[in-house]
C-alpha cells in the first residue's frame, strides 16, 4: 500500500506585497516522481523551500514521511535529500572533502561515511576526480556532485530543484537516468523544472504552477485531456490579426484562437484538414502568413491553454 511521502496542506507565503505561494496543497506517494512544472517566478522554489524547512510558511503545514516539518524538523529533514537549484558546494576543497562534510551534516560517521562517500562518487561518475578541487570541475561535474550530496544518507524523499539547468546534454542525461534509477529503488522524488520534456519523461504526476497557485495536477495523459487533445497551429503573420482571428474562429474544426506577441495560436481537432481553410481565409483578409508551426498536444499546450501564455515566458 502506498503511503504519503510528502503531504502539503494549504501552504501560503508572502514576500512583502508578493503572494509567492497561494494556498497550495498536494500529496506525493512513496516511490512516485512528482514534477512541479511552471515558468520562472511561478512559486516552485518557494514551495520547495517550505517543504525542506528552509522557509517558514505564513500558513499551512508540510509533512515528510509523516513528520511535521514545523514541529519535528530534525526527523522530517533526516528523511529528506535536497538538490538545490544553484550549485551549493565548497569549491576550494575536493569532491571527497565536500561529501565527507555533508555526510557528517546528515549524521553519517566512521565506516558508514567512508563507504557512502565512495558509493556516491561512483554513482555520479567522479571517482577519478574525487581528490580534485571542485573549482576545477566543469559545470556538469559540479551539477553531478551537487546531486550526489543529496543522495549520501540514502534519503526516502529527494527534492530536486531544476537540477539540469545550464549543463551539457551528457550530464543532463546522466542526471535524468539517476532520477529514474532512484525511483526504481523506491525513493520518492519531487522534481521541479521548467523543461516540459523532462517533466513528461520522468513524472508519474505533474502539478503545473503559475503565480503561486497549482492550476492543474494529474498524470501526463490527464493533463493533455484538459486541452482535449487538440493540435496547436502557431502562425506568424504580417498584419494586425483582429479581422482574421474572427474569421478563423468561425472555421469548422477550430476550437480556440489566441494571439500573443505577434503570433496566433489556433487549437484544432485535425491540423491536416483545417490548414488549407486557414490559408484561404488569410488570403481573403489580405493577411500574409510568414510562419507556420504545428504541435501535437503536450504540456506546453496545456499551460498555454490554461494561462494564455507560453511556459517559457
Amino acid at each position: 500500500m502506498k503511503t504519503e511521502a510528502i503531504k502539503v496542506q494549504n501552504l501560503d507565503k508572502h514576500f512583502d506585497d508578493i503572494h509567492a505561494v497561494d494556498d497550495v496543497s498536494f500529496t506525493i506517494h512513496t516511490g512516485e516522481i512528482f514534477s512541479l512544472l511552471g515558468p520562472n517566478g511561478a512559486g516552485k522554489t518557494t514551495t520547495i523551500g517550505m517543504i525542506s524547512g528552509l522557509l517558514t510558511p505564513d500558513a499551512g503545514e508540510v509533512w515528510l514521511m509523516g513528520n511535521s516539518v514545523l514541529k519535528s524538523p530534525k526527523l522530517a529533514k533526516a528523511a529528506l535529500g535536497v538538490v538545490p537549484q544553484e550549485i551549493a558546494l565548497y569549491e576550494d576543497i575536493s569532491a571527497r572533502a565536500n561529501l565527507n562534510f555533508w555526510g557528517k551534516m546528515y549524521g553519517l560517521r566512521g565506516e558508514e561515511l567512508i563507504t557512502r562517500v565512495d558509493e556516491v562518487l561512483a554513482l555520479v561518475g567522479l571517482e577519478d576526480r574525487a581528490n580534485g578541487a571542485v573549482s576545477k570541475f566543469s559545470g556538469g561535474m559540479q551539477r553531478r556532485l551537487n546531486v550526489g550530496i543529496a543522495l549520501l544518507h540514502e534519503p526516502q524523499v529527494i527534492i530536486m530543484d531544476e537540477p539540469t539547468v545550464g549543463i551539457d546534454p551528457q550530464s543532463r542525461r546522466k542526471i535524468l537516468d539517476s532520477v529514474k534509477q532512484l525511483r526504481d529503488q523506491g525513493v520518492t522524488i519531487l522534481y521541479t523544472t521548467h523543461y516540459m520534456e523532462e517533466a513528461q519523461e520522468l513524472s508519474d504526476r505533474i502539478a503545473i504552477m503559475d503565480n503561486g497557485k497549482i492550476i492543474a495536477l494529474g498524470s501526463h495523459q490527464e493533463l493533455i485531456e484538459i486541452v482535449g487533445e487538440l493540435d496547436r497551429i502557431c502562425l506568424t503573420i504580417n498584419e494586425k490579426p483582429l479581422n482574421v482571428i474572427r474569421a478563423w474562429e468561425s472555421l469548422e474544426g477550430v476550437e480556440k484562437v489566441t494571439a500573443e506577441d505577434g503570433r496566433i495560436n489556433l487549437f484544432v481537432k485535425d491540423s491536416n484538414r483545417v490548414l488549407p481553410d486557414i490559408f484561404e481565409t488569410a488570403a481573403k483578409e489580405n493577411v500574409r502568413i510568414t510562419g507556420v508551426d504545428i504541435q501535437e498536444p503536450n504540456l506546453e499546450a496545456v499551460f498555454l491553454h490554461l494561462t494564455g501564455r507560453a511556459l517559457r515566458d
Partner: protein
Amino acid sequence: MKIIAIAIKDLWRAFRSFFALAFMFGVPILMTAMFAFLFGGIGGNEPEFTIPRTDVVIVNQDEGSLLVPNFEVEGKNSFSTMGEMLVDTLQQETFEDLMTLTTANEADARLAVDNQQAGMALIIPAEFTNALIGQSNQPAEIEFYQDPELSLGPQIIQSIVMSVVDGFSSGILTLDTVTTVLEDQGVILNQVENMTLLSNLTAGSDSQQDAGDTNLNIITPTINTAGSEQANPLQTILRSIMAGMMIFYAFFTGTSAAQTILQEQENGTLARLFMTPTPTTTILNGKFLAGFLMIIVQVIVLLGFANLVFGIYWGPLISLLMASIGLVALATSFGIFVMSLVKSTKQAGIIFGAVLTFTGMLGISSVFVMGTPIEKAFNYIPLLVPQGWAMNAFEASWNDNGVQTLLHTGGMLVLAILFFAIGNARFKKRFN
C-alpha cells in the same frame, strides 16, 4: 559532533587561503621584522643587534660666559661656555658608537635634517650658559630638531643630552651650596677655585660612568636579547609593534571568520546546511567556533614567534593567558557583531576597509605615540574601541601589572559578551 565538523571545515578552508594566512601571520611578522632589521642586526647569526649611529649636527650659539673665560681644567679642554662643555662631553669616546657629530650654523643644520643628511640637529641657544648659572630669567633650553621618520636614535641622543645637562644643573646647585657653607665658615673662593670646583662637580658623572655606575643613563650600544626579560628600547618597540599588529589583525581574522556566514549565504551552502537535520544554532555556533579557534592559533603563533625570534617578554604566563583569552573572545565576538549588521559581502568589504581599520588604528595608537608628549593621553583614548582594551591588557601584562591585566581582561570579556549577544541574536533572527 556537527559543531566541530563545521568549525574544522571552516578552519581547513581558511588555512588553505593565501590571503587569510598572509593577514593572520605574514603581515604582523613582516611588520615587526622590518622594524627589527631597521634598528638591529638580527639578520646575522648572532642573537645581538646594534643600535644605529645617528648623524647629529651641533649648532652651538651659546654666548653666555663662565666666570673664567677659557677656563682649563687639568687634562681637559678649555671652555668659555656651558655649550662648549656639552659639546665636549658628547665628543667623548663613549658615545662614538651612538652618534657622529658635526657642527654647522642653524640654517644649514635644519636643512641637513630636512634633506635627511642628518638624523638630528642639536641647537644650543645663545642664552644657554646664562640660563643655567642663573644669570638670565630665561629657562635653559636646547632644541632637538629631528627627522620624524627616526625615533630610536634621536630618542637616545635626547636622553643623553638631558642627562648631561642635568649633571651641569646639579653641579651648579652643589657649587652654590658649597660656597655658601664655606663663606659661613669664613672661606671665600676666588673665581678660578669656583670654576675648578664646578668642573669637578659636573665631571663627577663622567667618573661615575667609568666606575660603571652611571647617572647619564647611557644605553649600551650592544644588547643581548636572548632570554632576557629586561626591557630595552628596541625590544620595547618591537613588543609594542608585534602586540599592535597581532591585535589589529586578530580583529580582521574574527571579522573575516564571521564573514563566511555571508559568503555561504551567497554561495547557497548556508541554505543547504539549513536543509540538513542540523539546528540553526549548531550551524551558527560551529561558524563562531571556527573564528574563535582561528584567532587562538593566530595569537599562539604570533606570541610564540615573537618570543623565540625577537626574545620578546610578554609578562607572567597567567597575565599573558588572561590578555590572550580576552583578545580571542573579543575579536571573535566583535566580528560576529559587525557582520550581523551587514547583509552582503559587498557591504562587509566596507566594514573591512573603514570600520576595522579606523577602530584598529585607534586601538593600537599607543604604539605610534610612544615617547611623544601626547603618550599619556593615549592611555585612555584607545579604550573607546575594543582593540584599545586588548592593547592595554597586553601592556599591563608585560609591565607585570596583574591587577591592570585582570581589569582590562574583565572589560574585554564584558564587551565580548555584549557583542556576541547582539550579533548572535541578529543572526538567529535573520535565519530563523
